[in-house]
């Protein structure tokens, strides 16, 4: 048995929340009922008025959290650098927004925030004294399509290594460990008119090369092989090929190097079927995390919701339960 714990990101329940199947309190109660012991929040999603929620709103969150018995594991925050249509916010402006999101995270009881993948090293470093003062750790999400090798992520990690602060770290998203392209995405794009031969060829390329990210990426640009583009018939074919690079298959050994910095793990999943995830070998992931001595949380993060056909039912709650069952089984079994 490992010391790994499981949590659920409320990202997973976005459809249930948007359509009124759950409110914040019932979402937390549902998470606790899955067997998870922690919860991950997106304060921009479910805390009204963020980053300036009223004291009553904060109190309601804390009451519901206490009632659920869940630990507040991580709050996912963003910097709205595209606040205006005509320009990107300058670093000093971004810093102020980041500080406000750190404030609200601390008010809600979190000591860890996930910074979205493109958060700049410069802005994070400038916010570090403020985060240290609040006692909040800022951890960059290492996400498929922007994994360890991508320039932005690599630059942020270089800053983290140089700064040597306990208040900096990484959130690994298991979408970087896809051994095949998610089937639900393929089905969704076929419904939009994707040429079936393109889907088949992408699956073949994935199998032949590990993933399509490494095959298509050339000096920061996406270049598709000729035998693939020859199959393109519609714009959606190119879109699908581009999106296929968002499912990297990074070797699990990468965790060894970054073990000291991993503060949290996003248990990305697209489709639970037959007790397993279709694209990610969770047994291997849990074994690798156990192998590096990781004892933090893995948060179920259901991404399949966006691949449900228009007007189709989103079984986000059933999928989360299935993923939690798998995680708890693996955490108990791993030696």
């Amino acid at each position, binding site marked *: 048995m490992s010391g790994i714990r499981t949590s659920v990101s409320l*990202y997973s329940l*976005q*459809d249930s*929340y*948007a359509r*009124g199947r759950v409110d914040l309190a019932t979402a937390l109660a549902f998470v606790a009922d899955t067997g998870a012991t922690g919860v991950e929040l*997106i304060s*921009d*999603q*479910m805390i*009204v*008025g*963020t980053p300036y929620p009223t004291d009553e709103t904060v109190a309601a969150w804390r009451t519901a959290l206490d009632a659920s018995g869940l630990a507040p594991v991580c709050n996912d925050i*963003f*910097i*709205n*650098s*595209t*606040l*205006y*249509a005509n320009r990107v916010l300058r670093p000093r402006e971004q810093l102020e927004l980041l500080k406000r999101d750190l404030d609200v995270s601390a008010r809600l009881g979190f000591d860890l925030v996930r910074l*979205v*993948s*493109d958060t700049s090293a410069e802005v994070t470093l400038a916010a570090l004294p403020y985060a240290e003062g609040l006692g909040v750790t800022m951890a960059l999400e290492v996400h498929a399509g922007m994994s360890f090798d991508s320039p932005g992520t690599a630059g942020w990690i270089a800053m983290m290594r140089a700064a040597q602060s306990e208040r900096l770290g990484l959130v690994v998203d298991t979408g970087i460990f896809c051994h095949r392209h998610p089937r639900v995405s393929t089905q*969704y794009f076929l419904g939009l008119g994707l040429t079936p031969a393109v889907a088949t060829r992408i699956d073949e390329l994935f199998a032949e090369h590990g993933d399509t990210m490494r095959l298509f990426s050339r000096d920061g640009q996406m270049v598709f092989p000729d035998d693939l583009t020859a199959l393109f018939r519609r714009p959606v074919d190119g879109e699908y090929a581009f999106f296929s690079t968002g499912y990297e298959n990074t070797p699990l050994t990468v965790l060894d190097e970054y073990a000291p910095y991993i503060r949290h793990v996003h248990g990305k999943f697209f489709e639970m079927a037959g007790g397993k995830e279709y694209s990610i070998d969770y047994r291997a992931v849990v074994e690798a995390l156990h192998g590096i001595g990781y004892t933090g949380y893995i948060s179920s993060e259901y991404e399949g919701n*966006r*691949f*449900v056909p*228009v*007007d*189709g039912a*989103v079984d986000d709650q059933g999928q989360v339960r299935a993923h939690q069952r798998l995680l708890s089984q693996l955490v108990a079994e791993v030696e």
Partner: protein
Amino acid sequence: MFDNYVFTEGSARNIVTETGESAFQAETLITYYRGIPLSMVHDLQLVVDGVEAPRDELAISPGGDEWFTLDEATTVTSYRWEYGTPLAVRWLGTHLSPGDHEVTMRLRIRVAYIPIPFGGERTRTVTI
């Protein structure tokens, strides 16, 4: 990928605004997974029976208490469109005639880490 949230079924109707003006109104959820300041609504289009509403005749409101034209909304940074809250969209000065109409709503928002605005679109047959 968020087409499911565009143009809420059953939301389209003729209304009379608080100032006595006629308008056609419909609602949409956000084509994303978190709330955003209203200024991050990049574009919204309404097409009725093949006729696109002029941009300056559209007004939007999350919650229905304050209304902004799309150009006004570009500077509205302190008023959030909360996740799960319907955004009401009005084509001011328009009333649809009784019967069926084909109505398309297109919504694009800007998000922090995706280089191009994105969103969704939905066409519905609306019976007035």
